[in-house]
């Protein structure tokens, strides 16, 4: 199918273009408390994420529940305004490089500032001027996991799929109906389905309707948030085949969000692994699966069941996902990492977490006075409790790496001072062609 009625757009899929560039994206949700709803902190759902999507490419976004995948997807779709950084759309490679060099300057001159502002007006999703915004809205569409929730139960299929065409004044009357039939045919449905309601379809069929609606304006990028998670494998196979076929025909780019690693391995060209709001590792699919560099990626792979696998053993990742309102220092994964080193970000909170997990000990803690995230006085109910904590912190019960990072451990009556070596947030480093990981270890 061709993009009927749309000639103004530049030819798509030129090598010189990135469909989407996400730069240092942050999305914080305020935590409010008390009668006055005072903001007491922020949930950093997405915190400093950058990646690109090229035309016709599928980028897979994986990570545990709550790591920020949907929030990121909503920011990319323009449904949610970023707190920091931005989402850039329709950049040519040269412009993107210019943008990156401008963004890397910490103290920009006035002329650099105005150049950046011009770029923002044309390409940054939350700053775009009218024309650019309209172009973006047409070209970026979303398919959600819960097709039931996203399809209006009181609307007929014809109206659901035809709505974007009507809103953008692409078609009306009998022409609209014909366009809808054409779209339905593309997703394996037909004219006989025009006058039915969403509840009259199976889960797989509803997902096809969502896809037809997303394709109505012939977008360049489709964000798929867990598009098959609610479906059976046999139906999932149909939808994945369909998505691939449509991508081939229309040179679509996909941002494919899923927690199913076998699906993402099958569909994605590149994979971005997220952990507590940040990118832990990103790279080509085969590299991520065959030579992962980040221990979190490894753990994720090891805990995922795979029919191909010859071993039946699953390796479970221990420990809880950290609270995104209080992300761990250094490397956010250090609280669960099996190979953590002394420089991975050991901090006062690790001591507090440890106290919480051990029966009875947390109740003896009276207060924490912090000088920094790495340095604090912990006060206890009595001297015995303080002494026993200090003894434990020196013992095998605590990971060797954490003990090494503990620079000072002083007991003063009912108080204990713990001071760890301060470290900066672990940054992404290049591990190979198009491959980055945020880990202090280099295991190449």
């Amino acid at each position, binding site marked *: 199918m061709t993009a009927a009625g749309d000639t103004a757009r530049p030819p798509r899929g030129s090598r010189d273009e990135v469909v989407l560039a996400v730069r240092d994206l942050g999305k914080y949700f305020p935590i409010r408390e008390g009668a006055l709803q005072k903001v007491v902190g922020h949930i950093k759902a997405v915190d400093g994420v950058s990646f690109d999507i090229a035309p016709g490419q599928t980028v897979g976004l994986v990570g*545990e*529940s709550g790591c920020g995948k949907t929030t990121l997807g909503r920011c990319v779709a323009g449904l949610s305004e970023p707190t920091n950084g931005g989402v850039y759309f329709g950049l040519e490679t040269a412009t993107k490089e210019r943008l990156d060099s401008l963004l890397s300057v910490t103290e920009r001159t006035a002329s650099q500032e105005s150049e950046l502002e011009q770029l923002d007006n044309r390409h940054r999703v939350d700053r775009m001027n009218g024309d650019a915004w309209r172009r973006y809205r047409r070209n970026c569409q979303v398919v959600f996991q819960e097709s039931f929730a996203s399809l209006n139960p009181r609307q007929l299929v014809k109206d659901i799929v035809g709505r974007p065409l009507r809103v953008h004044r692409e078609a009306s009357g009998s022409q609209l109906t014909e366009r809808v039939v054409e779209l339905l045919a593309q997703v394996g449905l037909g004219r006989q389905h025009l006058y039915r309601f969403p509840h009259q379809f*199976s*889960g*797989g069929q509803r997902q096809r309707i969502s896809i037809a609606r997303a394709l109505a304006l012939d977008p360049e990028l489709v964000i798929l948030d867990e598009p098959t998670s609610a479906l*059976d*494998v*046999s*139906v*999932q*196979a*149909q939808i*994945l*085949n369909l998505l*691939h*076929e449509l991508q*081939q025909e229309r040179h679509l780019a996909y941002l494919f969000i899923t*927690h*199913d*690693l*076998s*699906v993402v*391995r*099958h*569909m994605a060209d590149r994979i971005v692994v997220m952990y507590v709001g940040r990118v832990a590792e990103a790279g080509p699919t085969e590299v991520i699966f065959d030579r992962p560099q980040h221990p979190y990626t490894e*753990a*994720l792979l090891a*805990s*995922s*069941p*795979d*029919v*191909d696998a010859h071993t*039946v053993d*699953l*390796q*479970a*990742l*221990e420990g*809880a*996902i950290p609270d995104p309102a209080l992300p761990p220092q250094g490397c956010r994964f250090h609280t669960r990492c099996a190979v953590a080193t002394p420089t991975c970000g050991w901090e006062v909170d690790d001591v507090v977490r440890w106290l*919480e*997990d*051990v*029966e*009875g000990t*947390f109740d003896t803690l009276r207060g924490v006075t912090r000088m920094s995230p790495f340095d604090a006085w912990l006060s206890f109910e009595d001297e015995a409790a303080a002494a026993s904590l200090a003894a434990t912190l020196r013992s095998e019960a605590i990971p060797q790496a954490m003990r090494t990072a503990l620079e000072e451990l002083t007991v003063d009556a009912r108080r204990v001072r713990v001071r760890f070596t301060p470290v900066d947030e672990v940054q992404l480093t290049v591990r190979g062609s198009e491959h980055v990981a945020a880990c202090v270890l280099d295991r190449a």
Partner: protein
Amino acid sequence: MTLVGSDGPAPPALAPAPVASVVDLRVHFRSKAGIVHAVDGVSFDIADGETLGLVGETGCGKSVTARSFLRLVPMPPGIQAGGSILFRPHRTCETCSGNGCAVCHESGRVPDACATCEGAGCETCAGSGYLTVDLLEIPEQDLRTIRGNRIAMIFQDPGKALNPALSIRDQLAEVFYQHRSAELLAAAAIDGEAGGPAGTLIRRKAALRSRLLEDALLSLPPLRARRNKLRAAADDRIVAALAETQIPNPRKVMDRYPHELSGGMRQRVMIAQALACDPDLLIADEPTTALDVTVQARILELVRELQSRHRTSVLYISHDLSLVRRVCDRVAVMYAGRIAEVAPAEQIFSDPSHPYTRGLLAAIPATSHERGRLVAISGTVPELINPTPACRFAGRCPFEAPVCRALEPEPKPTRDGHQVACFIHHPPRDAADGVPTFDRQVR
């Protein structure tokens, strides 16, 4: 009828009998369009101490089968259209105190002897010689002593199964008060002691039958001390049950409410609740479907570990074949209300024999599949309204032959421990013209 710790005759040294046998189970639903044959002639055994997987697509009848064990299918609209679910309650083997010996076939548990034939084998016990009850027939009151005690169930959505208004302590306390009140009273050392109205009150409390007014009486000084002892005894058991599921700091978790816990934690609470009374059979209906892979892996490991420690038999329901492979000894594949194939877990993957099983395996994205080339099963699950006698997979099966539309295949053994309901494996003698084979693909 007493099911627990009855002092009947010593168990006969018979062959091990399955802990449960589903025999030709039929559960239908009345709907506007007609009768939905949701479960339509399902039979399988769950051997003592094994984990049996039950897999199949949405709506194939897995949950209805599972819920039938405890008569949790709403009737109406449900109709019990036939069949039976035989269950053999067990008790700890006296010879080895549950450690496993020759008498109990290393399972640590022994079934009670059949009351009718005292072990000789008769009709009531299906020839096994063991105490056997039909879960679909026994009076509601007997079922209540089995539910949560001998058979426990965990569900897909722990949020819905836990009572949001009760703390974790109260959710679990209920199980102990209901099924272990004698034990609690003994532990609190108030069993023999109190006669009179005070004793009655405490006993009613322990059995969870006290009313609001009685609770008020119990919180007054003369009775309070005893009530507190009872509570402490229950608390100890609750903490132990939670600790077994590796919940960190169970004494703290105990005072929380379900909404304050993560999905993985809630699922652990459910498992603790289910295993609290050391049941003979645990039914897990998609216990990890709502969870992350990492949490799922931990829950699976936990179920597997507790299963081997308690030697509980498990019916593990999932729509995910790759997952079932990780936990199950045998797998039953269900399709449209019937069993398509039953086999040891490894054989399901190395030698899938039913065309539907093959289809399911081929649909899972694997490294060997080229993108866009997943082998989807064509068509959709058939309507289960008044089905005609025919193979339920006909219409979607690539190997279908005329006979498949004329007769209904029954599960029959193809080799040791492997049963398949398909005419490719069991061609009917009088249908020479149209017998299906794997060599002839029709779609």
